[in-house]
């Protein structure tokens, strides 16, 4: 596998400018002759499809939801970063760049991150012009909030629905192009395979989720922006439909999968309440500004919280991280909560929860102030749990929330398969081993509005051979493979439901490849996943037919892919013998339980090559070289 990151030469600040100068252009009159497939309509895909159509390309856009407006980007609450320095508090492109690289625990590619920081400012302009109602001050200018991992206020927001508003912006730009006939939209359509012709990505195989029809779409280039794969853990803050199918099948066709084990866990989610649970809901991190985390000191203490006296409570974050206290970063507070629960001191059903207590804040600030600050979050908590956080502490527990890993891409966002571009959460590019809050939205839109429109032109201008037809042998072969796969799934008619398998897989991964990992657990998990996968192909029951709307079949295909990806996750975690960012290997930690990074051996992206069914995949490396930043140890004590 050849991994050329194609980082332009020259000083960091100049790379993007000079690179754009060197990229080949497509003649405007010819653009409409090029067909581009965009899979995904979230912030990454939606913005890319709209922008490419604006430039004149003929675009086909696909999503599995019934409307492009429903991509999971819609669920982002907190905000989007940009180095605007509107607050005059010392922000700059350089600082945003540095914070992001450091936040990622020095496992991201410098040049990409620098470019991200550079174009971040244009994103805010673009979105404001589209009518995104950002929060404003009375003077009419844009307002900012602070977010974890930064000492400046650079996060733009739209109340608690920033992702929704940004996505509606991208969706409206996309809709405009659909209305103009420049984009052909295919909702309720799932990509099931990638078509390679002469080693180049030239098409996809899809299933119409309503009619069940299998179709081939050919193009001059294919863009995947299909989001993260966190649902491999079953319970997560992702939408139920979020899946890895598109990137996984591309991976099986040769695309390198980078850093699959870099998965982020968000510390403040509403805990699991029973085994019927289908989804975990995120509560904004901002709650930790006034809430205090604690657990009973005694194991198995089942008294209601108000009956536990002060001296029998353990305010564990304040104890372990006196200087950051309850505001310790995501990975660190998640791990601390897990440790407390592992010691048998967890609260609530199954002992998987800790308290986030506002009683001190309520007596200090008064209930009205607390209501004003967090009212909507308290309401949401009440809606879900039926409990009032004004009267009793909230129960929280960490949950899977983001995947930094994804398909490997070079500086042009092209994977190692020529013509296959990957944007947004689906690629691995900008967040290293840990993503800072409010920077995923930034990355998705940067990729779609401001990077791909330039870099795709270069590929197209350099590859002028004719677009293969839908009847070419490569397409036919891929199509029949997809049909066989579906037929196979439907023919098993075993005893267990798809959900049963998904839940089991999730449990294996959460237990052994979740917040803390170790050699023994991971080795065990690999075996368990393999066994489960074998059982799946013998004993799954997928009811119904393939010729109509069949949600069990959709889900079965996705879980089949998760069962393969899950193994890779464990392998990657096993091979990365260091702790960095969200990846904590218990063997590699300091005495106080902090990450011990190994820059000598692991300052690289691990890129996996698929070697065939039940074959051990091969691990390649892209060495990360840092021209500008110095690798330091993160400390929050």
């Amino acid at each position, binding site marked *: 596998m050849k991994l050329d990151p194609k980082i332009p030469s020259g000083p960091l600040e100049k790379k993007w400018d000079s690179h754009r100068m060197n990229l080949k252009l497509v003649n405007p009159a010819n653009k409409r002759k090029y067909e581009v497939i965009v899979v995904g309509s979230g912030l990454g895909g939606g913005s890319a499809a709209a922008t490419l159509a604006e430039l004149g390309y003929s675009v086909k856009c696909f999503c599995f939801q019934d409307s492009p407006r429903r991509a999971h980007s819609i669920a982002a609450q907190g905000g989007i970063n940009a180095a605007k320095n509107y607050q005059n508090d010392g922000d700059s492109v350089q600082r945003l760049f540095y914070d992001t690289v450091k936040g990622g625990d020095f496992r991201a590619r410098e040049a990409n991150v620098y470019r991200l920081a550079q174009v971040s400012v244009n994103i805010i302009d673009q979105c404001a012009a589209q009518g995104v109602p950002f929060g*404003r001050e009375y003077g009419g200018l844009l307002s900012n909030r602070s977010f974890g991992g930064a000492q400046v206020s650079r996060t733009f927001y739209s109340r608690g629905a920033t992702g929704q508003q940004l996505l509606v912006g991208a969706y409206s730009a996309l809709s405009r192009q659909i209305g103009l006939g420049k984009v052909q939209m295919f909702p309720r359509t799932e990509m099931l395979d990638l078509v390679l012709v002469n080693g180049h990505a030239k098409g996809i195989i899809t299933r119409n989720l309503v009619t069940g029809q299998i179709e081939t779409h050919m193009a001059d280039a294919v863009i995947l922006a299909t989001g993260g794969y966190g649902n491999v853990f079953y319970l997560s803050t992702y939408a139920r439909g979020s899946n890895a199918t598109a990137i996984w099948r591309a991976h099986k066709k040769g695309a390198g999968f980078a850093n699959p084990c870099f998965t982020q866990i968000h510390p403040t989610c509403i805990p699991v309440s029973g085994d019927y649970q289908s989804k975990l809901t995120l509560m904004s991190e901002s709650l930790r500004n006034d809430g205090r985390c604690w657990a009973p000191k005694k194991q198995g203490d089942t008294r209601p919280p108000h009956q536990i006296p002060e001296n029998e409570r353990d305010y564990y974050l304040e104890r372990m991280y006196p200087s950051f206290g309850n505001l310790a970063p995501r990975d660190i507070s998640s791990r601390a909560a897990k440790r407390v629960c592992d010691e048998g001191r967890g609260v609530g059903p199954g002992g998987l929860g800790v308290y986030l207590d506002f009683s001190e804040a309520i007596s200090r600030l008064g209930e009205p102030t607390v209501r004003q600050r967090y009212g909507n979050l308290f309401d949401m908590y009440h809606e879900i749990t039926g409990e009032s956080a004004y009267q009793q502490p909230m129960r929280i527990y960490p949950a899977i929330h983001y995947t930094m890993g994804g398909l490997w891409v070079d500086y042009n966002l092209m994977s190692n398969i020529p013509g296959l571009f990957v944007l947004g959460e689906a690629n691995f590019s900008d967040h290293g081993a840990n993503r800072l809050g409010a920077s995923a939205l930034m990355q998705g839109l940067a990729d779609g509005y401001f990077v791909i429109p330039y870099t795709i032109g270069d590929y197209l201008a350099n590859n002028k051979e004719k677009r293969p037809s839908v009847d070419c042998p490569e397409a036919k072969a891929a199509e029949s493979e997809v049909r066989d796969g579906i037929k196979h799934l439907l023919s098993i008619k075993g005893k267990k439901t798809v959900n049963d398998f998904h839940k089991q897989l999730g449990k294996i991964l959460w237990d052994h490849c979740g917040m803390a990992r170790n050699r023994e657990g991971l080795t065990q998990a690999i075996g368990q996943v393999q066994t489960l996968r074998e059982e799946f192909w013998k004993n799954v029951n997928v009811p119904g037919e393939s010729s109509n709307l069949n949600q069990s079949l959709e889900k079965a295909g996705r879980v089949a892919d998760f069962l393969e990806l899950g193994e890779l996750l464990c392998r990657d975690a096993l091979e990365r013998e260091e702790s960095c960012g969200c990846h904590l290997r218990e063997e590699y930690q300091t005495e106080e339980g902090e990450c011990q990074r190994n820059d000598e051996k692991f300052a690289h992206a691990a890129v996996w090559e698929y070697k065939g069914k039940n074959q051990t995949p091969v691990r390649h490396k892209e060495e990360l070289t840092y021209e500008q930043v110095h690798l330091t140890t993160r400390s929050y004590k």
Partner: protein
Amino acid sequence: MNFKLKVWRQADQNSSGSFETYEAKDINPNQSFMEVLDVVNDDLTKEGKEPIAFDHDCREGICGTCSCVINGEPHGPENKVTTCQVYMRSFKDGETLTVEPFRAEPFPILKDLVTDRTAFDKIIQAGGFISVNAGQAPDANALPIGKEVAELAFDAAHCIGCGACVAACKNSSAMLFVSAKVTHLGLLPQGQPERNRRVLKMVDVMDAQGFGGCTNTGACEVVCPKGIPVEFISRLNRDYLAASLAERPESE
């Protein structure tokens, strides 16, 4: 808790449907309505029957995918929530819940509880945007917008396009949905150049898609999970009238 679910089953768009009754036993009051459907579906699968098809995705009230009518109420009995945010403690133990799809001519039923709402997308495609290509935007702070206006615009922009307003309206009118978009963009200075054109185009397509007119009954506002108020409909009417008066024949 135990429930009986009387669920609408329909094989596809061209078939006629009917109700089937299923039991849901030992339900936790904190279980969500959709998680009850999950359990019923797993049971159906194990009995070798076809599970109930229903739309859902984010399960946290923001994507607008979920779309059931429970006991005659789109998005169920609670105010300002979506179907995925309905919890079983809202119902009485032993109750029979009637579960239907959104019903409206412009939203054909695709299967069981799944409806096709692409008519909404067509309305947005007609004009629910501000025409600005990537890269054309001026500095975001070059155009100050008062806080009150920005907040009101957000209220309107918060619509999730779920279609409950249409489902609740006795005329299957899409006016609340359209008014939310027209209000959102019409309030902002960026939205002014296309304001007239936008409202005319969107209403044209709204009518062409077969949505009914609004007789101001107000059911839409009651079921809207995002609290879009009917006053926006009035605003839409005003904008439409103003735009019609200002309209000149298009020169080709």
